[in-house]
């Protein structure tokens, strides 16, 4: 069977299996799966307000997904998106609070700060991998916790006076819609960040598919030894890839800092966006355009889930279970592939 066809079929089957498993769990726990999924759909798209919120949620998911996918394409596994996102969030809010400038300077500055902070957080595992051959998975996990504790410390002592959140950012650094625009989605928190996210989708596609550097990065991911032999610097490309990946993740943080919330607060645990980004990238087949679809699905699931307890009594965590199972099925795509091949062979006979 054609590989391209398979790349679309496997995620679809994985999603289907995840949804079916979710239905079974609801049945076993005494809920109606029909009501459950109906309330999920209504919560994601039922009203303009909900649709706005869904798109808002999709925004950081796209960027987190791009971050994971970019690293994946270059042969690296960036589990550190969560940490890079948190430092990006903090950096953007910091710039948003500390400075005062006209909007056309202030806002880009805040966004760039987030990308730089995320990039720096990605540089460290990239550097260690290139220099000392340390596996990036473990380093990025450790960097996540360091990011969590360090940003909490900064929020508590530097950016506020022992409070658990920072001041609101200045309007000149905000991504929020104007009043008239907010009205369109019934005052949801939808903001301009979605344009930045879509622009980044284009940037990633262009960078990887249309430039020499992108070819080099992909080639290193494909076969390090061959790339080395062809005269490419593997180490430089590993570092560059982690920095770009981290920058995408940092931007995802700025979506929360400058768009959704407008401040940064002490966190007792992770936001989860970075980890969901892994699922988004996997579902999207690690392509820029695929990430949009992955983000769409997970954004709708997450926002729709909030409506489930009210309308059908199903706890929101059901959606987390479904998402985890989808990742599981995508990861085990060998099983799905084996199944498809058996079926298609039988038909061929």
């Amino acid at each position: 069977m054609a590989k391209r066809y398979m790349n679309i079929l496997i995620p679809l089957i994985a999603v289907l299996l995840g949804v079916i498993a979710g239905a079974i769990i609801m049945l076993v726990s005494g809920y109606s799966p029909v009501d459950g999924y109906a309330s999920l759909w209504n919560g994601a798209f039922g009203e303009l307000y909900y649709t706005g919120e869904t798109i808002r949620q999709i925004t950081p998911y796209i960027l987190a997904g791009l971050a994971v996918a970019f690293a994946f394409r270059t042969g690296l596994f960036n589990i550190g998106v969560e940490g890079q996102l948190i430092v990006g969030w903090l950096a953007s809010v910091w710039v948003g609070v500390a400075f005062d400038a006209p909007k056309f300077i202030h806002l880009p500055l805040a966004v760039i700060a987030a990308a730089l902070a995320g990039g720096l957080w990605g540089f460290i595992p990239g550097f260690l991998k290139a220099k000392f051959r340390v596996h990036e998975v473990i380093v990025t996990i450790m960097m996540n916790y360091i990011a969590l504790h360090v940003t909490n410390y900064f929020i508590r002592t530097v950016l506020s006076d022992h409070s658990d959140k920072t001041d609101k950012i200045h309007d000149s650094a905000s991504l929020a819609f104007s009043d008239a625009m907010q009205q369109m989605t019934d005052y949801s928190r939808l903001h301009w960040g979605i344009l930045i996210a879509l622009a980044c989708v284009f940037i990633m596609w262009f960078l990887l598919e249309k430039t020499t550097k992108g070819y080099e990065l992909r080639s290193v991911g494909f076969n390090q030894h061959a790339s080395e032999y062809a005269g490419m610097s593997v180490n430089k490309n590993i570092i560059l890839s982690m920095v770009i990946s981290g920058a995408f993740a940092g931007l995802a943080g700025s979506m929360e800092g400058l768009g959704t919330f407008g401040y940064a607060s002490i966190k007792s645990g992770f936001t989860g966006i970075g980890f969901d980004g892994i699922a988004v990238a996997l579902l999207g087949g690690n392509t820029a355009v695929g990430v949009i679809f992955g983000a769409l699905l997970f954004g709708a699931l997450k926002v729709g889930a909030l409506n489930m307890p009210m309308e059908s009594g199903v706890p929101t965590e059901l959606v987390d279970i479904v998402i985890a199972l989808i990742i599981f099925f995508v990861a085990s795509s060998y099983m799905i592939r084996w199944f498809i091949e058996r079926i298609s062979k039988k038909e061929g006979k």
Partner: protein
Amino acid sequence: MDFIQILSIIVPSALLFAAPLIFTALGGAFSERSGVVNIGLEGLMVIGAFTSIVFNLTFSDQLGGSVKWFALLAAMIVACIFALLHAVASISFRADQVVSGVAINLLAVGLTLFLVKLIYGKGQTDMIQNAFRKVDIPVLSDIPVIGKIFFANTYYTSFFAIIVAFIVWFIIFKTPFGLRLRSVGEHPMAADTMGINVTKMRYIGVMISGALAGIGGGVYAESISSDFGHATINGQGFMALAALIFGKWNPLGAMGAALFFGFAQSLSIVGKSLPLLENIPSVYLLIAPYVLTILALAGFIGRADAPKALGTPYVKGKR
């Protein structure tokens, strides 16, 4: 406050925080020695913590004071079964072991919170009444000086963990089973040629890791948090994984690292009441274990060699 007094505050507290890490890291040793990466330790701990708390709350009246030990047993069994998911995906279905582990973590948190809401109708369980409490270990705590530092105001689980670490070391390095387990993680094809069932050994490795991580989670829940909610096991599994790597995949090394991490964790909590440390911002103590792990990995504390076949699925007949 004299030095002995300070030690008698820090040491028991360090032992308390180290116990869950030791159990979980030992579990990780079984899985990774067999060649299967287990990032899912965190999720397995979550399952253990959840099971032990629910068991403890449910059977507290019938079983009385011994309920906490039975709860640990239940946590062990349930987490062992849960680990089967990771085993099936990463061994039989050749899934990317890291991705599968991430899925295990997400699934564990989602599933347990779902069940907590289903059973108790709220996001967090009640506090358990029969938790592991501070004890003075008989006889040993009467030893002058040392007894007061190590064996007074401490927990049985800490010493249980240390004993298990020595047992695990013996199993992995001194028994035929351990040799087979290690050979499967180093060179599965050679092991296969010698008639060792690679798939079976790896399944066993992952399931033992589930069992021990389940105990780790149970110990954490029943001695430190006393209830179960979304933030109960916040990164403990990853810390245990770090301890395993820091300890170079050696059970005793992992135990040493876990004791050190426990020490670091307890400092960030009891540090405020101690002279000298009260002026150091707690953030340094909080991030110390993670920074040290990175430094260890970068080779500043001595090179760590992972099992050679770690992370690669074994496909029979393929070179």
